[in-house]
């Protein structure tokens, strides 16, 4: 049976404000599933033109799928968000690229024509579910030296990356981190970040209810001097610090994807068009390099080169892995096209949720830059992978034409 592929568009994306993980964090006593439910509810509220029964899939990512992040979260989150019983759902785990994979999965279902409208997102409450909670690594990993033990500790893989690229110094990383903080502060000041944040009622038995409306992790006044004084917890006299890496965070994201046909039929706005995507594995000990081959693959599939890309949203798990990517593609550390509103070093990185934050922001950058035709979202992934999704700007004059 011959069949035509459908174009897939990113309609809209939202996220909760991100919190600091731990007892003092604003989400300390707020459930993880509730965070992602608020995001789904916000998408439905923003798009009354979308009949709820038209949502044909809910894919939600979480790295640690136990407790309030377990129980086939995508399905239950759909039900708890008021989607009809006929809307199915499932859970996804690809570590940090969970939400990104949720997007590419449902996008593929749309592209194939199996469905027309879907919600994809992710959540990670690292306070309630610290990385590595309940894991049971196969002893063969060590016995057969399948990977170096350091591969399971992300900070150590970042130190390993410094070994591979000695020219990426700690100072460069710290400088990158300061820029990230300042860019986020500027974006907040300009009111760019807030519109896509979902206010979340925060439960706390001693403090009472509150309302989270802004990110908790940013340290806008960060200086190089301060960063220089931080400890290097992963290696004595090492390079990776709490200042030049993303923190431990709580938060959730969700976005709405549709076939171009369904978007037109329902009157859904188009934020971006999916061009191509790639996931590629690398040595787990240097997982941070993953976005490089993933991006090369996505570009190759699209028949584009890095020169065609006008905007980049890169997840900042560690400054060193972002700089390694930029070096590879010959882009300056402070290039304006990269993370114009700062990145995860400032906003935080609730593991499986981050992919959609990159996409939501890229869609906003596209609105501001109709001159840019293509952009990308990319991130490194634990246990040695990278992911990259290429998008086309619908506001560009040549949108929809052959490139």
């Amino acid at each position, binding site marked *: 049976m011959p069949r035509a592929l459908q174009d897939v568009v990113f309609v809209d994306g939202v996220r909760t404000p991100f919190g600091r993980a731990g007892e003092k964090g604003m989400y300390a006593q707020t459930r993880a599933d509730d965070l992602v439910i608020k995001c789904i509810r916000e998408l439905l509220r923003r798009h009354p033109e979308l009949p709820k029964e038209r949502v044909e899939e809910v894919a939600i990512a979480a790295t640690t799928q136990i407790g309030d992040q377990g129980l086939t979260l995508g399905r239950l989150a759909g039900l708890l968000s008021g989607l009809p019983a006929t809307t199915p759902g499932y859970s996804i785990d690809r570590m940090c690229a969970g939400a990104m994979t949720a997007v590419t999965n449902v996008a593929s279902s749309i592209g194939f024509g199996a469905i027309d409208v879907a919600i994809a997102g992710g959540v990670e409450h690292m306070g309630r579910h610290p990385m590595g909670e309940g894991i049971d690594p196969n002893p063969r990993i060590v016995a057969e030296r399948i990977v170096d033990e350091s591969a399971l500790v992300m900070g150590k893989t970042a130190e390993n990356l410094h070994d591979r690229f000695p020219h990426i110094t700690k100072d460069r990383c710290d400088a990158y981190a300061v820029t990230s903080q300042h860019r986020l502060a500027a974006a907040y000041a300009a009111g760019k970040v807030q519109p896509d944040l979902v*206010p979340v*009622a925060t439960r706390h038995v001693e*403090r009472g209810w509150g*309302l989270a409306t802004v990110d908790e992790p940013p340290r806008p006044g960060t200086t190089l001097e301060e960063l220089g004084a931080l400890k290097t917890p992963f290696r004595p006299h090492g390079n990776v610090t709490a200042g030049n890496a993303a923190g431990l965070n709580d938060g959730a994201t969700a976005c709405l994807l549709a076939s171009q046909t369904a978007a037109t039929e329902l009157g859904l706005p188009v934020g971006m068009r999916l061009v191509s995507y790639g996931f590629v594995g690398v040595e787990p000990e240097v997982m941070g390099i993953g976005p490089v081959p993933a991006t090369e693959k996505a570009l190759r599939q699209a028949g584009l080169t890095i020169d065609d890309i006008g905007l980049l949203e890169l997840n900042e798990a560690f400054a060193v892995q972002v700089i390694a990517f930029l070096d590879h593609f010959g882009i300056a550390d402070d290039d304006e096209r990269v993370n114009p509103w700062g990145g995860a070093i400032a906003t935080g990185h609730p593991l499986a949720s981050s992919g959609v934050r990159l996409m939501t922001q890229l869609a906003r950058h596209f609105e501001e830059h109709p001159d840019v035709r293509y952009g990308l979202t990319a991130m490194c992934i634990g246990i040695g992978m990278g992911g990259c999704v290429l998008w086309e700007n619908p506001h560009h004059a040549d949108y929809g034409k052959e490139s």
Partner: protein
Amino acid sequence: MTTSTTAAPSSTPAVPAEVVTHTPVQDVALPGGAGTLALVTLENGQDHTRPTTFGPRGIAELAATVARLRERAEAGEIQAVAITGKPFVFAVGADLSGIPYVVERRQATEFASAGHAAFAAIMDLPVPTFAFVNGAAMGGGVELALACDHRSISAGVAAFALPETFLGLLPGWGGCYLLPNLIGPANALKVIVENPLSQNRMLTAKEVAALGIADVLLEPADFLEDSLRWAGGVVSGTTSGQRPEVARDEAVWDSACDSARKIVLAKSAGRATGALRAVELVRAARTATREEAFTAEDEALGDLTMSDELRAGLYAFDLVQKRAKRPAGAPDPSLARPVTKVGIVGAGLMASQLALLFARRLGVPVVLTDLDEARVAKGVDSVHAEIQGLLTKGRLSPDKASFLTRLVTGSTSKDGFADADFVIEAAFEEMSVKRQVFAEVEAVVSAECVLASNTSSLSITEMASALQHPERVVGLHFFNPVAVMPLVEVIPGEHTDDSALATAFATGRALGKTTIRVKDSASFVVNRLLGRFMGEFSRMVDEGTPVTTADRAVSGLAPMPPFVLLGVVGPTIALHNSETLNRAFGDRFHVSPSLRRLVEAGKRGYYLMDDGRPVPDPEVLAMAERPENPVELTVGQARERILEVLAEEVGLLLSEGVVATPMDIDLAMITGAGFQFWNGGLCPLLDREGASERVVGRRFLPPGVASVPAG
């Protein structure tokens, strides 16, 4: 008294420690730049199984919080205040656990006015105030919401009520003033009086919004976020905070109060003093200033708190809420055996009712048996028809109805009982019949299968005596109508073992019933006391006291006048009960010749319905006794006599050890015979009117347990 759940204040004056409701505040940025809202959470630090209540310390904390908010509002730091609750609970009102310890009226009025002062301070805040009713709201919780300018309610709220008059109190933290001025007197009185006196009915969130008590109904998933968004709109003026004006016409207002008063009188024979005073406070609310109204509420609370009716009401509430859940004398619940299939002997009305109850509540196969095919078919058909009726009314889903329909089957053979764990007989009330039935059942079932009897009067020990396994026989006496009446009397025979008894208690509980352990004795508790009551009532009438006089003498005692009750129970059953009791206990149980003639004439009752009102059937009147020397008692004499014979019977029940304590008698009369909360069932009434001391020489309950203790 060691098994009492209500401590006697005279011996142990320690007031239970207050679970304090705290009022933490967080500032919230209102959406749309409407400013800062101070969000107050009502939080007692415990989960939803211990709902938030207000005691003196909680009220003091609330008052301090509001005072601080006032300063901040005046300083321009906050532009709005909102109050919400912990998950699933807004607040369920005043903590009543301290009331039994109040010995002076002043203590009650002080607590009342402290609450008023705190709520008035909320009303007087110089910024808009909101209540976000996120969960259960009752009594003072509802009044706290009413003290705010605006209210949102979550569609997930299942319990919203002003239940005070149900207990004998009244909404005394502004409810009687604020609610009628918000939604008008007629609707307010529905909430304040009619619903509480109708099995304490609660409002759904939808009704709360429809009545205009809440301004907006919001979905539960993001209720707080939505409420804040709505509040932002109200504060900034983009959302209207307007609501329709209440019509203040005096005649209309008064007529609403008059009809509510009539309803209260009809439902309580004038004994629901809390409800009656609530009606008058609502009447005054049309013109009263806030100060006048709040002071009047304080005074009313002071009076009511110092009334024995309220203390009895709280005692009864405690019995129903707590003692009913931990039946006295029940064996360790872990000894109970699982019940996976139920047999019912008999396919008559009682058996069909039991079949439906067992199927619905236990979800296990239920087999009905009777002597012939026609009776079996009729019994099973009636259960299936009931299920169909529930389906039609939307009370059951099609799948559930299909499940229940297939659960209930019938047969003329008892072979279907072979794999049952629990067989209950509802056969003809005759010892030889019951013994034969059990012998037949024993031939089929396993040695562990519990054999229960729904007898209302016969000896369990005797019923079991010829069986191979008498230790598995237990009495389980249900009340008609089975689906409505909460009580089940559980009666162990002489040989009943703990496992069978535990299974009976567990089954009763699984059926949603209140269980009470009763000694194997003629007619157990409820029928014995009702029999004595009805017998003495009939005796007085047979001796010459007019029915109307006798009715007035017992008003407010039973849920309906005795001869009306006679029609509900059925004259045949009533006669049978009185004869059984007369045989067992002698002449103190009167068998009325009039009643016998009435049954012989095939009459269904004493009254005929004429245009919806009961009028005495002239044919029945013609059958009445005509004593040679009529003795006509006054209302007072008749009441004294009825209460005294009841006191005598209660004394005997206790001395014979039929039940462990007076509390079990009261719980039985409340849940099995619909006796009143404000009488505490029966014993507090007998103590209150002196009957117990006159007849038995002592009170049944120490002063203070269900009455106002001496100061």
